[in-house]
């Protein structure tokens, strides 16, 4: 009970954690080829849906960077029976959220809605997926908005660093080498017909999976789908394998000049690994130790010990094809060189020394015990399931997750570090005030300093602009 034996000098003892129970997930196909994945959850009168199509920015040539996102953005700009304002107004009146977007490997339409409004919401969702008309004048406006977003982001140091990082890693011929927004050059060249043909190739039931989570039973769902998606047919185009990144860039320090910048945005990384890697679990634990949480090594060193930054972290961005490993922070300009040295040392140290037991256990527990939190909302569950579908993983993946994470030992982490954190193959990108940082970076002995031209990046979400600290 703990009440009678209260002792402030010790961590309170706890009972064993309750295990997370996963419901049976229904997985079936409709007669038009559409795969449906359903997880019923009745806690609140909500339903969340994601209609996900294979293929995003990596399904078109790199020279058309921005096309997948632009196509997704155009879906709700008008259909054969509703104009854009009618779509937006109807969705708002339903109290629903209907959005469409594209990533590198998939395009998706999401609907989140109160259960009682589901039929009306599905009707609009089906309409924008089946009958968009891509009006020329809306295309012109949307493309212009996106071009100006490129311009706007070109003044943001974090975006400058992100863009330079992926472009240097992948080059301009690989779809992962540009932001999802595209560049001003590629966007300028896109025409309405590009959108139409990308739409027809990707947005077909044969390429799609509908993930549904919430307060709805299969029979009710099926009859709603039959009504709203009646007559939807087609296979679309199958995807081709992605090219490999064209030759690794020369290791070294790449500087994007931002005169007068208040900080330096630092990125360290290389082209690492895809999501189907057999080393998924060791890599996930490894990254948790290095930069996945507040008490990871990078943040404790660069923030809590040195005070160089507001926060430092790292991630393996695992995709259908190998995505980047990236360690990142915004650091004070005068300590840019010291921060870069600390990044390199902390990354490299994981290949040289075993992670101590206490630290390893903390990382494993962080991942394993936090699992219920990652399934809290219906939107969370939809995202988890849609990811499994995208990477062709079993839907029961998370039933084995805890055991698999807890099975990762220090040797496995060390081997993963030796293989997947090769400091000698990494590049370092710094977006900051060149005249303040260039000479000290050059004296770090981490390769030549190359000055890059500025680039632009994809749009951030626009939400509540007020700032809590």
């Amino acid at each position, binding site marked *: 009970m703990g*009440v009678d034996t209260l002792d402030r000098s010790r961590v309170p003892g706890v009972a064993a954690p309750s295990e997370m129970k996963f419901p049976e997930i229904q997985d079936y196909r409709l007669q038009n080829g559409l795969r449906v994945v359903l997880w019923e959850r009745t806690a609140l009168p909500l339903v969340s849906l994601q209609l996900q199509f294979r293929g995003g920015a990596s399904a078109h040539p790199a020279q058309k960077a921005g096309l997948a996102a632009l196509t997704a953005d155009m879906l709700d700009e008008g259909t054969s029976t509703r104009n854009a304002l009618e779509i937006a107004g109807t969705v*708002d009146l339903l109290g629903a959220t209907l959005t469409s977007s594209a990533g590198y490997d998939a395009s998706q339409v999401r609907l989140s809605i109160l259960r009682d409004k589901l039929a009306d919401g599905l009707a609009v969702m089906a309409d924008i997926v089946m009958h968009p008309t891509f009006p020329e004048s809306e295309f012109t406006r949307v493309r212009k908005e996106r071009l100006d977003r490129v311009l706007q982001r070109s003044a943001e140091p974090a975006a400058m660093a992100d863009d330079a990082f992926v472009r240097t890693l992948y080059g301009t011929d690989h779809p992962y080498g540009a932001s999802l927004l595209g560049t001003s050059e590629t966007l300028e060249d896109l025409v309405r017909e590009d959108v139409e043909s990308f739409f027809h190739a990707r947005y077909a039931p044969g390429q799609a999976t509908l993930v549904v989570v919430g307060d709805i039973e299969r029979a009710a769902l099926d009859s709603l789908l039959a009504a709203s998606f009646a007559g939807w047919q087609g296979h679309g185009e199958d995807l081709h394998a992605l090219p490999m990144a064209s030759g690794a860039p020369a290791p070294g320090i790449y500087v994007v000049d931002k005169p007068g910048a208040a900080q330096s945005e630092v990125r360290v990384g290389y082209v690492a690994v895809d999501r189907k890697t057999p080393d998924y679990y060791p890599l996930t634990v490894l990254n948790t130790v290095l930069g996945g949480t507040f008490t990871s090594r990078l943040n404790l060193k660069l923030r809590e010990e040195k005070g160089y930054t507001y926060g430092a972290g790292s991630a393996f961005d695992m995709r259908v094809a190998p995505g980047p490993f990236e360690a990142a922070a915004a650091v*004070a300009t005068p300590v840019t060189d010291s921060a870069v040295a600390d990044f390199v040392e902390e990354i490299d140290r994981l290949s040289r020394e075993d992670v101590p037991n206490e630290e390893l256990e903390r990382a494993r527990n962080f991942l394993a015990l936090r699992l219920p939190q990652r399934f809290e909302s219906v939107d969370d569950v939809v995202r988890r399931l849609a990811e499994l579908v995208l990477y062709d993983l079993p839907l029961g993946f998370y039933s084995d997750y805890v055991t698999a994470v807890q099975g990762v030992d220090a040797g496995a982490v060390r081997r993963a570090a030796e293989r997947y954190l090769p400091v000698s193959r990494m590049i370092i990108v710094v977006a900051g005030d060149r005249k303040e940082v260039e000479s000290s970076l050059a004296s770090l002995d981490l390769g030549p300093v190359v000055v890059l031209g500025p680039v632009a990046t994809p749009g951030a979400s626009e939400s509540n602009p007020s700032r809590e600290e």
Partner: protein
Amino acid sequence: MGILDVPFTRHRLDNGLRVVLSHDPTAPVVAVNLWYGVGSRNEAPGRTGFAHLFEHMMFQGSLHVPKNRHFELVERAGGSLNATTWYDRTNYFETLPSNQLELALWLESDRMGWMVPAMDQEKLDNQREVVKNEKRQRYDNQPYGDWDERLHRMVYPERHPYRHTVIGSMEDLDAATLDDVASFFATYYVPSNAVLTVAGDFDPDRTLRLVEAWFGEIPGGDPIPPLPGEPSLPPLIGDTVRDEVVGDVPLPRVIVGTRIPPYSVDGFAVAEVARSVLGTGRASRLYRRLVRERRVAKDVTTYAFPLLTGAGMLLTWATGYPGSKPEELEAALAGEMEGLADATSDEVERAVAVTETDLVRSLERVGERADLLSMFELYFNDPGRLNTEIDRLRAVTPEQVRGFAAERLGADNRAVLTYIPGDDR
């Protein structure tokens, strides 16, 4: 009765700590959430930004918890945690697997009761640098990054507690001492100035006993001193006041600040609905007319600051295209704001519907549920306002929205901040 029925019970310990318990065993997770009735509005002159710096210091350890241990223990337990500072309050929160509830109670009670003995100069210096880097990253190194500092100076008069922003001044932070940390703690971080909410999967009786055990022995504290400066102010700015920045921004942007009723009165709900008619979603007036039909703006944003003291603030902004004339953007924004004087019932219905689903969705997470219950208890002594929030919005009539527009959205209540691309050096 609205569609919301979040259960809760209220309790008060002898030392004045208010406790809200909201039981829901749906998922094996529990949220512990603390709101302290102190924010940047309580800062003395010369100490702006201190409430926020203090929040950082609360993670630097307490008598029984060494530096970094707080984060380590929660992460090791599979939890997540953070804290935020705002004008009127500071909140601290953890979400954990439900068997770890007592860990959070131990950690939160230790820093509520025994934070000061663990403080030292090195920790203060370290976190001061962290906060300076936070300001550089989120304000100084962002285009338009100083907008809220400038806007608050125009909307709120000299000596008003909202005249300065939460991040405050770096010079003031430099002046902060360990004595400031100790006295701020003794004044504001007392049980009688705090609300503790536990939400999610837990045993209510046992939890109440645990809360009493961990928090009950902490001394209650003196009444909170009155706010510094002059909290009362006229409902309107009284004129159109202006500020213009020519600088390193890629596109022109016009930002309008308006005094609105404070969050503590019913008039705020009217302002919130009016704001939503104006700016929420693609069917809103600003998006429809300025972005889509007239194509004078690339994007529009609105936000109603829910502030307690004297007046809240309605924020409205529009970003132009390259070469847009700022005076045309301003005229377009002003025209739509004044035009709300003909708001229709359809528009009001749409605005309320959007807000309603947003609220229901936010309640899916125990952490957000706990946060809202803490807020309503701290601000209104009534966590039950969470369940009636929708009803208050639904009660707003088109006439009230039109009246709000006529009274508040005119040229006599406008702070206009303009950013123009150009050379600032």
